[in-house]
């Protein structure tokens, strides 16, 4: 396999749901990724600074408490200024309040610059598969 890819992982905003974050950390590490876990209650800037310092390939944002949309707003712009234009942005958890039409939610997060957007109940295998596709087959060059 190629060299290890680095993922910055964390829970954004004032969100303190810690269990999923631990599970993700464990599962991604087991799958062969270098995981930089910045933990819960992390502002956008912490994700971005960690990605700069560790030369990360992906920023993986969790949001469980329903404020995901406002917490994620403007993140892609900041990534651009920070020189992270090629770093992939993933987001998952319970990213919006209550039950909303997934298609719309996905569209809104896409427009905000996120590359992959996961609904509640996504299996971790699915995320790992996507990561491999995006990172190892030079998938992005074709986008």
């Amino acid at each position, binding site marked *: 396999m190629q060299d290890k890819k680095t993922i910055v992982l964390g829970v954004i905003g004032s969100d303190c749901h810690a269990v999923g974050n631990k599970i993700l950390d464990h599962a991604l590490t087991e799958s062969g990724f270098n995981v930089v876990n910045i933990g819960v209650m992390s502002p*956008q800037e912490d994700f971005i600074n960690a990605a700069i310092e560790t030369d990360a390939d992906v920023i993986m944002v969790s949001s469980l408490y329903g404020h995901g949309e406002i917490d994620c707003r403007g993140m892609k712009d900041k990534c651009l*200024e920070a020189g992270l234009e090629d770093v992939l942005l993933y987001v998952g958890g319970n990213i919006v309040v209550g039950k909303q039409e997934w298609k719309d939610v996905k569209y809104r997060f896409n427009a905000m610059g996120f590359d992959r957007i996961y609904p509640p109940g996504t299996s971790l295998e699915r995320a790992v598969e996507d990561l491999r596709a995006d990172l190892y087959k030079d998938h992005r060059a074709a986008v």
Partner: protein
Amino acid sequence: MDAYLFIDFGSTFTKLTLVDAYEDNVIATEKSHTTVNNDVAEGYEKALRMLRKKVGKAFNIKKKLACSSAAGGLKIISIGLVPELTAEAAKRAALGAGAKVIKTYSFQLNHCEMEEVKNSDANIILLAGGTDGGNSKSIIHNAKMIAKHKISIPIVVGGNKSCTDEVKEIFGKDIEYYITENVMPKLNTINIDPAREIIRKIFMNNITHVPGMNEVEEKISQVIMPTPAAVLRATEVLSKGSLRESGLGDLAVVDIGGATTDIHSAAEGYPIKSSVLLKGLQEPFMKRTVEGDLGLRYSAKSLYEGSGSLLLKKYLNDKKYNLDEEIDKRYKNVDIVPENEDERYFDEAIAKVCVDISMERHVGKIESLYSPTGMIFYQEGKDLQNLSYLLGTGGVLVNSYNPKNILEVGLNKEENSMILKPRNSKFLLDKEYILSAMGLLSTIDEEKAVRMMKKYIVEI
């Protein structure tokens, strides 16, 4: 008698303010048209002759200092990467330097845009992009475009520090450039003072774009800053005070002119309620916004045709006017002064529109969102609801019988507004029109400037 002479070269008038060097007194003020026979020097000489006559006795000028907004003032183009981030930070730096920002560009510029830049009448370009250690593509690309298009005006580089060497190499000897600190060194953190200072220095050394100014410069010490920078400086010292003289605290200045309405605020503007979260780019303590579509003369037209037409009718209070005619008259003859009550009333109605809209644009806003925990509130921009003072300057306010009436429009009267305009400010008036002179004075004697402003700026 020893005195300081302060000169303000305006687009229409050159104003002189003679200040006693020892007592905190304005000895006299005088003004004359800026250009007489197409010459700034002659306008200045004329005003000085009139001033001497007015004073009546001999005085010795210990020091002369000038500011200028002649020939359209200092014009800057700002370039950044993301519109809300480095492009906005660059724009704020330029405004803080007292410039008129003629356009702000973002991302990587194309040839069309570069042509626009080249054909503009800008005096300086402020080039930003990327946080320190961050994005380098954009600023390098834009520097290359500037070099390729052989832009001949000074370039102030305030972007990603990691690109400095490369930018220097790209510009080489063909481009006049000045490297300064990044306007946004870290995400959401602004750092506009170093860029501001460099811009002021360039302005001071290159103010040759005004015909006749070179000659004047030999007669007076130096034109040290653009007029809006002098007003901003005066606002700052009046708010903060000096070592021995206390300041007034949070303060905003409303400056209604013919072409623009400027608001200068000296306030942190943090949220009043602890439950409100702050978002967006950090606000500078000294913030200046300029509304190029709001003014009493040249911009009366854009005000009327744009956002202000409904408000204008509201502030005219059903009084009958031929609106098109009144507006056109002002747009075409920017020098006219109201000659009767009706004209004055109309001017004051325009002034109210200027105050209303420019304050609304200057202050921050609150946005509410539903969340699992109930409503949450986000603030973007400054909260000026608790602002202590609103200070008015400019001819229309100074000459009004009821300037308070005009300034009052700047306050928020609605109970639950999401717009963070001041609510209970007291009103002050720059009755003697000395703010810019006091900004200049503060560069030689800050204590005196604060004392004199507290003496000459009156509560209304």
